[in-house]
C-alpha cells in the first residue's frame, strides 16, 4: 500500500525558516526546486536539497556492488537497504496561507514535526512564484547556491502553470528588480530559463 493521498513524507526537523522532510519511500522524492505544501495550517516549502543516507547515522553505508552488473541488482541482493536508507529533503520555508491565499514570506509558526508533506498544487505554486517577495526571499537566503534553486524552481513552475510563459515573464521581472545591480548574474539565470 502506498502513502495516503499522494503524501511525499513527514517533517522531521522544523524551524521558522527551514524544515526537513523524510520521504516515505526511498528515492521517491520531488525534484530540486519543487514546492511542497506542509502541515496544517499549511506552509510552503521549497526543496533546496535532496539527499539519501543511512537512516541510522551511526551506520555508515558501504560499497556492496563489486560483483553486481547493475545498481538494481545491488538492491535486489540486499532487500534490507530499502528499510535502512532514506531519502530526505532539505527545504526553505517560503510562504504560508493567509486568508485562504498563498503568500510569500515566513509563517508565524513552523510546521509541527510529523506534519505531512504533499506536492504543492500548481495554482498555489504559480501564485507564490509570481510574487516579488518570493524572489527576494530566495536571493536573500543563506542557500549555498540560490541561483541553481531559483532556476530549478522557475522551470518546474513554468512547466506546470497554465500560462508558463506568462509566469516566467512575471518571475523574470521580479528577479530583474532584485538583481538590478548584478546584471551578469541576472542574465545567467534568465539564459537558463529560456
Amino acid at each position: 500500500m502506498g502513502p495516503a493521498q499522494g503524501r511525499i513524507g513527514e517533517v522531521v526537523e522544523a524551524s521558522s525558516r527551514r524544515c526537513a522532510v523524510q520521504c516515505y519511500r526511498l528515492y521517491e522524492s520531488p525534484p530540486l526546486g519543487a514546492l511542497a505544501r506542509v502541515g496544517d495550517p499549511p506552509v510552503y516549502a521549497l526543496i533546496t536539497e535532496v539527499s539519501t543516507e543511512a537512516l541510522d547515522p551511526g551506520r555508515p553505508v558501504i560499497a556492496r556492488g563489486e560483483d553486481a552488473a547493475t545498481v538494481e541488482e545491488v538492491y535486489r541482493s540486499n532487500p534490507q537497504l530499502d528499510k535502512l536508507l532514506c531519502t530526505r529533503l532539505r527545504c526553505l520555508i517560503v510562504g504560508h496561507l493567509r486568508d485562504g491565499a498563498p503568500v510569500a514570506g515566513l509563517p508565524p509558526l513552523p510546521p509541527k514535526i510529523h506534519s505531512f508533506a504533499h506536492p504543492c498544487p500548481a495554482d498555489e505554486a504559480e501564485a507564490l512564484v509570481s510574487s516579488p517577495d518570493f524572489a527576494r526571499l530566495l536571493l536573500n537566503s543563506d542557500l549555498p547556491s540560490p541561483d541553481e534553486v531559483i532556476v530549478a524552481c522557475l522551470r518546474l513552475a513554468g512547466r506546470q502553470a497554465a500560462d508558463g510563459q506568462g509566469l516566467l515573464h512575471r518571475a523574470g521581472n521580479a528577479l530583474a528588480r532584485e538583481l538590478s545591480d548584478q546584471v551578469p548574474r541576472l542574465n545567467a539565470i534568465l539564459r537558463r530559463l529560456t
Partner: protein
Amino acid sequence: MSLNLGKTAQQIEGFAHSLKGAQNDRSRRLSEAVDAMRRAAPEEVRAKQSGPAAQRRFLYAVAGEGLGASHPPKSAPGNFCVLSVDGSHIDVDRHMPAACALVNIGGCVLRYGDDPDAYLYNEPSLYSDDRLYLTEQTPEGATEIPIEGAILGLMRTVEEVKALAPLIRDKAPADAPTLALLDGSLILWALAGQGYPELVRTEIIQRGLTPALDALREMSRRRVLALAAYVSLPRSREAANALRLHLCEFDSAECKRVCRPRRSPHSPCSMVNHLLDRELFEELLAPGQRSCLFSTNSSIVDEYGRGHRICFYYLHTGEEVARVEMPEWVALDKALLSLTHTLILDQTRRGMGYPVAISEAHEQAVIGGGDRRTFRELVDRSLVRRGMSISGSEKSRSKRMAWV
C-alpha cells in the same frame, strides 16, 4: 585511583611471552591433529564413541562420519527467505528506585529472488512485579526465584526462539524455502550442571524452549523451513575432543584418573591439548565447505525433548570458521541440512562475512547506552508523576558523580 597501567603492562608482556613460547609446539600439534582427523575412519570413531570407552570426563562431539569429512555447498534456490530474531536487555538494577527489567526483541525477514523485500521490527517488553519472579506452589510450600542476571539472559534467549514462529507465520512467504537464524548457541550451556534450581530448568526448557522448538518443527512439516544458530568465532572443543577420544589409548577409568578435563598428559591424545575446533577446521575445510555433522553429548540437550537434540557442523565462510547448530529434525533432513549450509553461506557473502539477517536483527534489538539512560529517566519520570519517591542508592549517585 586509576588503573596502574605500568604494572598491568608488565604482566601482559609476560603473558604474551609465554604464548609465543608455546606457539611452535601448538603449530606442530595442530598439524598432527589435522592429519589424524583426516585419517580417522568413521567405523573406528563410531566404535570408540559407542563402546565401553565412551565414558569420559570431557565433552566430545558424536560424529556421524569421518572426523575430517567435508561437504561443498549446493546452489541456492531462486526464491528464498531468511529471517532472524535477536534480543537485548536491561537487567534489574537494584540501585534504581523500582525493580524492573526490559527485554527488547528485534527481528528481520529478508526475501530474495523475484520479489525481494525486507521487514524489520522490534518489540520491547517490561518485566516488573510478578513477571520478575519464577514462582511455583508445591505441597511443600511456595518457591520464588527472581528473574535477573543470568536467568534473565536465559529467558531472553527463550523469547528469541519463541518470536520466530509468529514471525514466520506472518511475514515469510509460505511457498519459499525459509531459514530461521539465531545468533549464538542453541545449547543452553549455563543450565548444564546443577547450578540452577529445578524450577529454572523447567521454566526455561520445558515451558519455554521446548514448546518454541515444537512450534517450529510443526511448521516445518507444512513448509520448507529450517532452523539454525550461528556461532561466530566459536571456542568449542567438542570436535577436538572427539579426536582426543579417538586417539586415547587408555580405558575410560584410567583416562578419568590421569587426564584433566581440558588436557591430557599422555601421547598421542595430548596432541589435541588446548586446540579449538575452529583451528582444526580452518585447516580441514576449503572456503564454502562444511564439516561432517556432529551431535553434542551435552546432558542439557537431553531435556529439550524428542527430536530437538542439537547437532552442529563447522562452516568455512571464507572469512572465518563458524559453528552452525540445529535441532535434530533439521539435521536429519538432508534437504533442510543442505539448505542451512547454502543459505548461511549466501548470507555471510551478502553480509561481508557475517549473516546479514542476524546482523540486522541485532541492530533492531540492541539497546544502546543512550537508550539505557532514557529508559532509566522514563522510569524515574513515571514514578515522579505519580508522586512516588525516586531516590536511588547512594552508591549509584556516588558512581555518577565521582567527586574529589
